[in-house]
């Protein structure tokens, strides 16, 4: 019997919502918009964090850089022997890489020099890099999607880059990286080490930095300190430091945007308070009649509870679904500029769809709680309307 009662009140609430479409639609739309905005920020940040984490999985445990006059400088390749002798170091790879500013497209490319073994290691450590077994070396290169698009290149196509001394160097595209690793490969050109040296005029005895791999992850910090002792004038950067600063930077940026959006939540709470307070004469009459018919205060409260729940849940679902589509299928146009902002050539990277239950719950918490609190007192007030007052038209 009591279950039946709840069911009837619920169905009454829904028909009553539908009867006042205009008023409820405006609340619904603004509610949805708010969930959409907050949801977009949250989805975007978590997706980009995951992407960064994937990227960093392949990064070396320690990177050793030469510092001269407080600046990053070329490191003598022979230093690797000294690092290799430190106990616990499994592998040291001298790396040759750099940034190339491309005038015509106004963008920066990342150029990495790799040969057989180091390319294989690179490919193995990074998931969804590229399935292609394309050769590199002798002017043959692999390029990222962004470069392919901006220069209109296809597999087998030719392009040239300016050498550091002003001469031209021609390359042939032997493969294009697939989209799934876009954050990492969008602006990337992988070529042989020899080609990089020719392009940037790096002497054979020097490298850009040394990548150090360590067997036991617990020892990374100790080994980094030892490298500092063995090679004065160098700097050892630990992978974990980079991971942590990514975490902090994105957490901080999203928090900032989130704080800005809290104003929206407040405005929405005020709006819903106002809507719930300003009962029309019709609505007052309806409640009065219901009470005259024998509805108790509890019943009216329950009816209003169902109304609020229906609005909250539908708006929440709609907002979350829209945010999901926005972030993962439409390139996050609305929130990306506020949160991302690092390099120039990064417009259209598609994030890998991912949804964390906890984050969805958090958005639910921050939107539904204010709405409920704002409408609570007005709802109570309307449930205590005296039937005789309303019916007599006072």
């Amino acid at each position, binding site marked *: 019997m009591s279950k039946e009662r709840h069911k009837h009140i619920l169905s009454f609430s829904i028909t009553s919502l539908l009867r006042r479409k205009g008023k409820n639609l405006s609340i619904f739309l603004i509610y949805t918009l708010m969930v959409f905005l907050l949801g977009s920020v949250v989805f975007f*940040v978590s997706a980009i964090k995951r992407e960064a984490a994937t990227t960093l999985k392949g990064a070396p445990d320690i990177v050793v850089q030469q510092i001269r006059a407080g600046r990053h400088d070329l490191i003598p390749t022979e230093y690797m022997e000294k690092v290799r002798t430190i106990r616990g170091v499994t592998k040291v790879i001298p790396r040759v890489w750099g940034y190339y500013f491309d005038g015509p497209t106004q963008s920066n490319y990342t150029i990495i020099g790799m040969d057989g073994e180091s390319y294989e290691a690179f490919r193995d450590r990074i998931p969804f890099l590229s399935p292609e077994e394309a050769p590199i070396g002798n002017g043959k290169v692999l390029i990222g999607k962004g470069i392919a698009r901006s220069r209109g290149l296809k597999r087998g196509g030719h392009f040239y880059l300016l050498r550091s001394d002003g001469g031209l160097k021609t390359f042939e595209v032997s493969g294009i990286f697939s989209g799934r690793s876009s954050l990492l490969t969008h602006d990337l050109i992988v070529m042989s080490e020899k080609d990089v040296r020719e392009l940037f005029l790096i002497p054979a005895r020097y490298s850009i930095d040394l990548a150090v791999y360590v067997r036991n992850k617990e020892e990374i910090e100790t080994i980094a300190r030892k490298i500092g002792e063995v090679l004065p004038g160098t700097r050892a950067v630990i992978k974990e430091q980079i991971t942590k600063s990514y975490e902090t930077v994105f957490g901080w940026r999203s928090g900032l945007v989130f704080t800005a959006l*809290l104003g929206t939540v407040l405005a929405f709470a005020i709006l819903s308070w106002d809507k719930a307070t300003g009962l029309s004469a019709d609505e007052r009459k309806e409640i009065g009649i219901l009470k005259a018919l024998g509805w108790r205060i509890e019943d009216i409260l329950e009816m209003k509870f169902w109304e609020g729940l229906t609005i909250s849940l539908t708006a929440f679902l709609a907002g979350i679904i829209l945010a999901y589509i926005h972030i993962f299928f439409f390139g996050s146009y609305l929130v990306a500029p506020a949160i991302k902002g690092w390099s120039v050539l990064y417009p259209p990277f598609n994030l890998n769809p991912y949804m964390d239950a906890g984050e969805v719950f958090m958005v639910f918490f*921050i939107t539904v*709680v204010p709405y409920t609190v704002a409408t609570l007192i007005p709802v109570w007030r309307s449930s205590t309307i005296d039937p005789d007052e309303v019916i007599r038209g006072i």
Partner: protein
Amino acid sequence: MFMNSSILALVLGGITTLLLLIYGAYFGLKIALQWNPESATEEQLELEKRTYLVSTIVNYVLLFEILSLILFIYTVDDIHEIIPGAMCATGSLNANRFGFPTLLVKLFTFFLYGSWIVLNHIDRKAEDTPLIKTKYLFLLGIIPFAVLENTLMIAYFAKIDPETLVSCCGVVFNPGGKVTSVLSPLPKGEMMGIFFGGFLFLLLLGLAMYWRGGRLIAYLFSASSMAFLVISISSIISFISGYIYQMPTHPCPFDFLQREYHYVGYPLYIALFGGALFGLAVGIVEPFETRYRSLTKAIRDFQKKAVLLSMAGFSVFTSISVWYIMRFILL
């Protein structure tokens, strides 16, 4: 440290709920002081209307409290990534001295709100609402804990220092660790005995309560279910978590809240704390059973329901645990 969306949500939600509760308690106090069922004045009528407001508020506050508890656990679990040394919520909670107290006070207020709602539910069953003064004074008593809870939580989040190394579950919950010696002082075999023995004892007690009732059994059941809550948490640390992770050396009560373990921690803890709350409720209402004639029947009916719900909650908890143990043994 406040620049994290979940933390912002928690702190704002906490403050909103607290303000709402104070607003409700203010009217609660007015009702407790001026309540006079004999009178038919306008003031009395207004007070009667206000009771609906206050109970609606506390119902929502409890709901928000449960949601915020879940969000708190999730957040703490999530921020381990920026705290050095932390691998799960244990490490994050260890980040400063406010972490674990926040969690404990949050759990405590959960039981306080729950008890208030039970009293209110019972009271509304009687025409003369005899518990009206008791429950509104009780509500006033909850306020300090709600204030404490939010202060601790804000202090905790404000004082998290991403530079300080913390010790995580591997250290804290391993034999010889600080927490283990308090929560599970016994070896695994004996702990298992106590857990399953306790569960059977509770079931028998529950059945006795359901069929026979009686003051002593009601109090005993209530006390036992709180004791069983503590035993269960010790057992989670001692052996249940080990079976869930399929790794007996990893006794962490938080890791299984993560995605890798299919979020099994949430149903597990919800069933456990649900069972404990209903168990507690059986004893909370007991003193009023004979004191107020108008309540006797309502209380008896309620106790029967609560006993069943409590046993159901504990059974779900135990079944999930047993399922993991069986899976480990059979596979």
